[in-house]
């Protein structure tokens, strides 16, 4: 496989031909903020946090879905990008009811960590305070729509790793939500295999194991990667 050489933040980086900008950057130790991306699952390009600037292209490009090209000159951390990332995060915080202090994922939350790392101290947009329900009908897991950021990781994991197709999206725009099957209570689902992969995949406290209270929950994401590695490379080891 041919390699490509590109420049990321002024640094020369070599990448595999089919690598994405995100993969090339990660390999070179350059971190790009992501939210909807999850290693091992195909990308949606939805959260727009990984947008980067590429010299000569006026549009911003998502690092998670854009393939590297020879000689590409990428900037991942300009003032403009930082501004957009912060605003995007603020929009998320204002959209539903993200109250870290009472969240099962407090301190283990990707949204929270991102907000810290992007210097988001407060939200300049008006909070929408929508009324979303909590689905506690499943024996093992729960779903709190108030904390959902619609990254669709759970849906992608459910369809493409577990193959159950239980999690789906319904509605559009601000009314979009994650549903179980054709919108029935999770506990009533006859497609759910209780595998828990969606809970492992969720970046916030929207999907949680029952019984875990504030700050108690940790996720086992290596399991997902393990399965994918096993499947694709026939290696029964989790990489790192």
């Amino acid at each position, binding site marked *: 496989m041919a390699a490509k050489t590109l420049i990321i933040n002024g640094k020369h980086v070599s990448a595999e031909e089919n690598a994405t900008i995100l993969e090339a950057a990660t390999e070179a130790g350059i971190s790009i903020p992501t939210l909807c991306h999850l290693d091992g699952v195909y990308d*949606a*390009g*939805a*959260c*727009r*946090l990984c*947008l980067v600037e590429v010299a000569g292209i006026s*549009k*911003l490009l*998502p690092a998670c*879905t*854009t393939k590297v090209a020879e000689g590409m000159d990428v900037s991942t951390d300009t*003032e403009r990008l*930082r*501004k*957009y990332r*912060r*605003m*995007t995060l603020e*929009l*998320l915080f*204002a*959209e539903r009811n993200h109250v870290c202090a009472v969240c099962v994922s407090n*301190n283990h939350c990707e949204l929270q*960590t991102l907000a*810290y*790392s*992007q*210097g988001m*101290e407060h939200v*300049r*947009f*008006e909070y*929408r305070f929508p009324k979303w329900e909590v689905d506690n009908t499943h024996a093992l897991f729960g779903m709190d729509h108030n904390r959902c*950021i*619609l990254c*669709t990781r759970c849906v992608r994991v459910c369809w493409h790793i577990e193959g159950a197709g239980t999690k*789906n*999206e319904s*509605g*559009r*725009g*601000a*009314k*979009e939500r994650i549903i179980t099957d054709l919108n029935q209570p999770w506990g009533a689902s006859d497609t759910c295999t209780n595998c828990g992969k969606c809970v492992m995949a969720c970046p916030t406290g929207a999907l949680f194991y029952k019984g875990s209270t504030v700050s108690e929950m940790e996720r086992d994401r290596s399991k997902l990667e393990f399965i994918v590695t096993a499947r694709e490379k026939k290696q029964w080891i989790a990489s790192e």
Partner: protein
Amino acid sequence: MVIDDLIAIAEQERAARKKYVIRCCLAAGCMSSNSKGVKEALDVAVKEAGLENDVEVRGVGCMKLCCQGPLVQIDGDGQGATVRIEGNPQGPLYQRVTPEDAASLVATLKGGKTNVQRGDPAQPFFTNQVSIVLANSGIVDPERIESYIAADGYQALHDVLREMTPKDVVEAMIKSGLRGRGGAGYPTGLKWATVAKTPGNQKYVICNADEGDPGAFMDRSVLESDPHSVLEGMAIGAYAVGANQGFIYVRAEYPLAISRLQNAIKQAKQKELLGSGVFESPFNFNIDVRIGAGAFVCGEETALMSSVEGKRGSPRPRPPFPAERGLWSSPTLINNVETFANVPPIFRKGPEWFAGIGTEKSKGTKVFALAGRITNTGLLEVPMGTTLREIVEKMGGGAPDGRKIKAVQTGGPSGGCIPAEALDTPVDYDSLVKLGSIMGSGGMIVMDDTSRMVDVARFFMEFCMDESCGKCIPCRAGTVQMYHLLNKILEGKATPRDLEQLESLCDLVKNTSLCGLGQTAPNPVLSTLRFFRKEYTDLLKEDVYAGPKTDDPGQTNGGPKPEALLPVT
């Protein structure tokens, strides 16, 4: 079917023509004011007058001046003339016809009089139109393939299949200079060339008939009035790119267009103009109709394809473009209804002829659906480069009730408002973009001096907010905040800081959204801010807050440094 059969059908159809043809509009606009009843009454009246052998009552497609419907026009001069021009544009035109009027209309053919309101076929609204796409609209019977064939229909397909290589076809399209009529104006020939060159055993052709812009009805009219021209255009496209299956994606809100399309496809199959071995060549092509639920975002090409595949209609990042990876991951040609409808005339009359119409960079004509505060609401087709003034003042007749036109909105929710001062702008892709608007698919909404521009911006923002698919954050959550801010401004509760925030949201949503819906959603706000800023600032109240500015990316206001906030690990 060979060419002789086609010519025979055309000749037979022409020979069967009667002395008079009473054309009655049966497109959705006139149908909504009972033109179907008018057509039936005309049939009865002709029979009662004993004129069945001399008069044909023909249901036709849109006759363009929709606001005066139901429209009826008579070919022949109505004074017993024996020579009759097919689709005579000068024939007597009757407006707002009711079924009760039928008998007196038929009586005019024998020298009788009628009080039915006469329209003026010599007014600029009609005479300044140049018809390519709408050439058959209002003239042929959209429910009879013979009627289309008699208007030289399917001859271009024959000539293409039997006399040109796919490469010749692509080259002719490039030479014609046709650009996509679905909004962005991408050069059609270039798109066909890309799909043709992409390797693949299975390729598809899709006709985008989602038409979601509020106020737009061009594509619907074309489908209702002349469905075969779209089918023929698609077949020529399929031959050029090497596809054997086509889909037309129509919204369920267009039941008449759907039934006429299905009928047209059935007839074309019966006549072996679709199916296998068309014109006894090795070319196979089938077309199926796919019905969408009317989500605006499903007009976006990647969302549309996802919907055709039976999945949720949400866009995905491009590249890869549909030409490379489209429907079921196969190379796919996707064009708009009007784009395809331009194709048969280009091959009938030659790409040079087409390239001779319009401006240097925008060739041919454009169909507009004129609506809003305008005297003549309806459908018009004008050469590219016609000025907005010509369209809205001369042809459209200006604003009603002696009001003044304030602005013209083009491009629907993705477009912008062009102020009256800029009415002398020629309508072409590039001039409109320079004014912060876009050509769009052809919706043109006129506003008079009673319209409030902030209200207009809010209307479109509400539309985008409701129609956002919800996949990406800037569009999903950003439109909600922008809509909220516009409301706040209209309620007189906003401060200059809110306006600043609105502008920075426009910047964010435009530059970071995934698909065209979000990327263009701020346009109505940006263009009204550009030309009517005072209407916004007049509504603002004093800012009493003296905190950090909204658009300050650093905005630390004395708090801890970001790194210091990181959780201890």
